[in-house]
């Protein structure tokens, strides 16, 4: 009996002994920061590097749909960016470059756009892209062929006219000088119905296989229209459940690169280059505007006053983030209204006062639903709980897996508050502000304001750019005044790449472009 007991102690000690040396020989926190200044190498400068090879990119997500018209999450769109292209596509400077179209013209009154399809471009299944395919794709996305509107941004389209075999004209219901960004919507083969299980587009990589919760594999599209791209033969997206698993993958060598959170970045050690860029999404505390007590603007303002984004940035993100204050990303400089960043500074007294005015002198209880795979959001929520407590609000955290979050919070809007980062699908202020329209299908905070709706609609129809910018800023001011939700930060996106790889291209959008990456050694 005693032997048995001693054996147990011995095994416990042994287990501890295994852990300790690991801790001792780990790299110090500072070691990794030396490489953080490594600038991304411009891809066009290198032409002599070896092509081919395999690259494994770690992601902390699960795709929701592979069909480009159904995919709702930012991470999924980031993966699909490598498979699909629109008539135009964004480049690394935020401009739109012709993709499936070779060239385009806008009519003078901005009610129609003409596109000339690129000569020789073909889908990954070998079929050439025809005017029929383009019409089919846009009609499907915009719901013009009888179905639902799948891409809300395209609802302004009136019709798509086939002029000849390689020319397509897009007619709009009303003039729109800023419609081009929405035509990054994917072009897909006409009549192909298997997109959700085997996506086919015109992008640099074609789909090979997908194992849910494990990996999604893409291979080189040999007929890609940009002749020197992609450089890799194969890209595997390794799908992980949380940031710890991703860190283990990086250290263990099973992934070659990843987009990681700041707390993980401080731990990865040498052998990696760190590329810092804006994540181009705004992390927010989404408040369900149609749920008590958040239907009262005073309560929403009180919550805004109770929180301190600066503390969240320094605690959770080690200072690597830009404070927001509005749903528009700070990177969209022309439209971002920086006067709103400090519209609500932390003021516990004022928060309490607002709460008693709203009829909650003793505060209230709220549940913050957070997707558990995003450690950064869970950590943010922890800081929020402690800040809200000071204002008398008892907040609790409820972790759910991402699929549950998508259906319960985002789609069914059955929640009180949530922490999430929201990105834009295009480089236009509309993709950040449009979801606050009273009838928008993606208005998951249930914000309703006729004033906002009318300013937004006015901005859409305004031909003069300066006036348009002014109107978009006005719309942000209304959101801020109504405290539609609490806009915390644009978290710096840290991309790590094993030293032997190069060519990472940061975008002003939330996308990962695998086509320019190559093995340098």
């Amino acid at each position: 009996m005693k032997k048995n007991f001693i054996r147990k102690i011995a095994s416990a000690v042994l287990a501890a002994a295994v852990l300790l040396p690991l801790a001792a020989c780990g790299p110090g926190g500072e070691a990794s920061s030396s490489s953080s200044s490594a600038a991304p190498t411009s891809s066009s400068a290198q032409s002599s590097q070896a092509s081919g090879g395999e690259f494994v990119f770690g992601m902390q997500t699960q795709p929701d749909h592979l069909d480009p018209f159904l995919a709702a999450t930012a991470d999924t769109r980031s993966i699909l960016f490598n498979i699909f292209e629109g008539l135009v596509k964004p480049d690394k400077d935020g401009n739109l470059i012709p993709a499936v179209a070779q060239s385009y013209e806008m009519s003078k009154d901005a009610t129609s756009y003409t596109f000339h399809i690129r000569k020789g471009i073909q889908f990954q299944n070998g079929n050439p892209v025809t005017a029929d395919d383009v019409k089919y794709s846009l009609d499907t996305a915009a719901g013009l062929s009888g179905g639902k509107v799948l891409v809300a941004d395209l609802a302004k389209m009136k019709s798509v006219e086939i002029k000849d075999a390689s020319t397509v004209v897009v007619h709009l219901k009303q003039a729109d000088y800023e419609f081009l960004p929405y035509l990054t919507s994917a072009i897909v083969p006409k009549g192909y119905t298997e997109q959700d299980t085997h996506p086919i587009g015109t992008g640099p990589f074609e789909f090979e296989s997908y194992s849910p919760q494990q990996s999604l594999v893409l291979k080189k599209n040999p007929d890609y229209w940009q002749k020197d791209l992609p450089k890799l033969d194969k890209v595997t997206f390794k799908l992980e459940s949380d940031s710890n698993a991703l860190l283990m993958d990086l250290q263990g060598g099973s992934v070659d690169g990843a987009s990681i959170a700041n707390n993980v970045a401080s731990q990865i050690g040498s052998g990696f280059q760190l590329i810092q860029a804006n994540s181009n999404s705004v992390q927010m505390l989404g408040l369900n505007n149609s749920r008590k007590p958040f239907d009262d603007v005073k309560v929403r303002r009180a919550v805004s006053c109770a929180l301190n984004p600066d503390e969240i940035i320094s605690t959770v993100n080690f200072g690597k983030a830009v404070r927001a204050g509005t749903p528009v990303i700070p990177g969209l400089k022309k439209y971002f209204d920086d006067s709103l960043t400090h519209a609500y500074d932390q003021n516990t007294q004022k928060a309490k006062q607002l709460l008693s005015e709203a009829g909650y002198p003793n505060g209230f209880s709220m549940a913050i639903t957070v997707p558990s795979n995003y450690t950064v959001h869970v950590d943010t929520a922890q800081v929020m709980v402690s800040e809200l407590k000071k204002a008398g609000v008892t907040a609790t955290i409820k972790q759910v897996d991402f699929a549950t979050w998508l259906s319960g919070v985002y789609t069914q809007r059955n929640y009180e508050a949530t922490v999430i980062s929201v990105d834009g699908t295009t480089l236009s202020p509309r993709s950040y502000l449009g979801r606050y329209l009273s009838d928008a299908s993606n208005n998951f905070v249930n914000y309703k304001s006729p004033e906002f709706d009318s300013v937004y609609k006015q901005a859409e129809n305004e031909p003069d750019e300066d006036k348009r910018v002014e109107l978009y800023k006005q719309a942000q001011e209304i959101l801020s005044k109504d405290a539609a939700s609490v806009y915390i930060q644009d978290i710096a996106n840290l991309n790590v790449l094993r030293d032997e790889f190069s060519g990472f291209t940061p975008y002003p959008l939330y996308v990962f472009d695998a086509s320019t990456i190559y093995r340098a050694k």
Partner: protein
Amino acid sequence: MNNDRRFSLRVGAVLIFLVCSAALISLFYTPCDPYAIDAAQRFLPPSLHHWFGTDNFGRDNFSRAVTGARYSLFVASVTVALSCFFGVVLGLLSGFAGGIADEIILRLTDALSSFPAVLTALVAVTVFSGGKFAIIPALAIAFLPSFIRLTRSGAMRLKNLDYIQAAYVSGASTARIMFRHLLPNLLPTLIPAVVVGLSNAILAESGMSYLGLGIQPPTPSWGRMLFEGQTYLFHAPWETLSAGLMMVLTVLGFHALGESLEK
């Protein structure tokens, strides 16, 4: 009682006493506020002020570990109490009454134990969604089958003995025989099972909290501390080690205790 068992008993008692008193004291006093966030104080190594150092939020690991002991012990004891109570009642019914009741209870137990315990608990947590302690009924269900089996086999072994027959003849009711005559004689097998059950419940709770399904942050729990500290294992292992140490001591204590109580 021989020397080996006395040794196990002492070790177990001392360890459990230490952990329990730490948990009790944490109700009134902790060296620091276990919830106080301060980025300037993060990743401090162990010192006189912060015995186990601080975590990535600058919270005191020692205070969090002892506060976590409170929740872990609470969840474990309520879980085991629930599953033991229902397990014993169903087990006695099944073992003593036999017949159709036995069949039904046994099949249900089989069905329940055909799923891995953790999976059962995961499903139950989702069903009882919400609430800080949704994990308690979830784990209680997962632990139920072992108590039913144990009680049933004991009851079947004892029910044909003479003293039970004698009780029958003297007109005692079934309930009286079950709880007055059978149960006390089952205690020697039940008590070690309860003690070992406590250590299993603590491990299960930590496992669930590690996965994000148990006690929700910022309430401290050992499993969550392991998860949060894991990222910084190489840089600041204090958080993981403090939670790990508490778990090792508690589980070891319960095991030693359980072993000394076994026949």
